[in-house]
């Protein structure tokens, strides 16, 4: 037991553990709807584009490092603005969604790199690219908790219209829901979660935390409610296993969490392939049995 809980003796591990335990299920729940609505690329674009938010924070001398609260605020403003812009362009153009997202996000990354090259070199971006969950403070735990309450509340309050819109947007409209407002609220929520998780997981890895548990849940769930529950549980398990392993393997924590999620997804894929091969084989045996009787 001592060996098991020993990693919690380090104070920075305790905060990191709490942040991860909240962020895991949060990412899983939000990710369920992001994947169902086909918006994985959208959240990817915001997290990569957020790099420009970081460089802007440095360039305008708003913050000294990535962990600065002023930087968090800059990121929130930048990510929400970028999400609203992309959603607005998507609503108004005949261009394919992938195209709009690609030009917004490559444009944003390019701008970020140009800005940072004039500042102090790329090193300052390292924290934003890969994140540092071990730098979490008590404040981060509170922020994460608030974000989790907001996300869970938003999804619970809008589960019916969101789910109807996944089948067909008109079905939600007929029930009297303002789907346009709901779409905008949803992209703002994605932007908030990404902006506030960037410091812990980094621009390159946030998508993993959001998309991977949801994808795994989708593979094994028998129904919709099951998918939401399993996705949150997978997020939780991935976070706990990731933190624990990173301590004992002495590996970077954020990437280890994402790796744990990927292992869960791989196990689910293998499990479901085995199950479908078995089902096919038993169906074949049943057919052979029947023909045997006729002969």
């Amino acid at each position, binding site marked *: 037991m001592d060996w098991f809980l020993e990693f919690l003796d380090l104070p920075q591990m305790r905060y990191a553990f709490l942040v991860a335990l909240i962020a895991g299920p949060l990412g899983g729940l939000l990710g369920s709807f992001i994947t169902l609505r086909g918006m994985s690329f959208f959240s990817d674009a915001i997290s990569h584009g957020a790099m420009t938010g970081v460089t802007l924070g440095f360039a305008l001398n708003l913050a000294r490092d990535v962990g600065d609260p002023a930087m968090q605020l800059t990121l929130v403003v930048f990510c929400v603005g970028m999400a609203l812009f992309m959603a607005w362009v998507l609503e108004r153009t005949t261009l394919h969604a992938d195209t709009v997202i690609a030009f917004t996000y490559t444009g944003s990354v390019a701008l970020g790199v140009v800005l940072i090259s004039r500042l102090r070199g790329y090193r300052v971006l390292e924290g934003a690219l890969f994140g540092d969950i071990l730098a979490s403070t008590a404040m981060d735990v509170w922020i994460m908790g608030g974000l989790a309450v907001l996300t869970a509340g938003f999804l619970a309050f809008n589960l*019916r219209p969101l789910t*109807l819109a996944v089948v067909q947007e008109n*079905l939600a*409209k*007929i029930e009297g829901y303002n789907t346009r407002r709901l779409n905008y609220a949803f992209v703002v929520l994605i932007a908030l979660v990404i902006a506030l998780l960037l410091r812990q997981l980094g621009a390159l890895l946030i998508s993993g935390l959001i998309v991977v548990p949801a994808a795994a849940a989708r593979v094994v769930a028998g129904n*919709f409610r099951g998918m939401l529950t399993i996705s949150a549980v997978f997020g939780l398990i991935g976070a706990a296993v990731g933190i624990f392993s990173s301590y004992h393997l002495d590996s970077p924590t954020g990437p280890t969490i994402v790796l744990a999620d990927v292992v869960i997804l791989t196990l689910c894929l293998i499990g479901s392939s085995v199950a479908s091969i078995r089902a096919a084989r038993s169906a074949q045996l049943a057919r052979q049995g029947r023909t045997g009787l006729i002969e």
Partner: protein
Amino acid sequence: MEAGRNHSCGAGCSHHHPPPDSGRPSPALLEVRDVSVDYEDRAVLTDISFNLHKGDFGCLIGPNGAGKSTLLKTMMGLVTPTRGKVISHARQIGYVPQQLPLDPGLPLTVAEFLSLKLTQSRFWFGAPKRGAQRARIEAQLDEIGAAHLIDRRLGRLSGGEFQRVLVAYSLLNDPDLLLLDEPLTGVDIRGGFSFDGLLHHLHEHRGITILMVSHDLHLVEHLSDVVFCINRDLCCHGRPDVVLRPDNLAKAYGHMPGMVPDAGGTAFIPIRNIR
């Protein structure tokens, strides 16, 4: 606007004024009054007026891009008309949307989908495994011969099965008017045959007034008792044997690829049906 008019059908085949209706004594359930819809600068519908009466089985026909779906969406309040209005006296309207491709991995089950309609509050947490709501869903699926689909995933249904589920969904609020948007697209022939039986049942036995957009003129002739032929404006309306005459259809469709007049010259029928 003018360009739009060039493609419309101009004068109709039967009395255009006063506002056409099916000539039945029963009261109008749906009044379409001078409805025009413009998308940006393009006229999609121009001054459409007609009445649908209680007990009618109406069909909306017309070429692709004629505005049939838009008209149905206007009736459902999904599209706001540029001019004119739709007045509904129906107690409840059921709407079966055009089938759009569905994510095949969507884990939503048929029971969950139907429970989304039955749950009136914003809060919905999946379908109950037993109880009154489950019984209501089972009964509805049973009526349309789809009881076996209840725990299947929506994304794994065939076109015909999904169509039935959409009809079940639209029936859950017990409508007296049912609007169907091309319910037979994506349905195989066998599915199509049982599907017209289902429509007949809803019309004759449940007494539901129906308005359906359809491309299948054979089915329209077989099922409907009033046909509205539109191509941006209302070209023609009336009993199917009057409207579905080659000269009338030629006015709306211009020419009809794949269709030929039948032996008596009274209707266009698809070439695939000629043996």
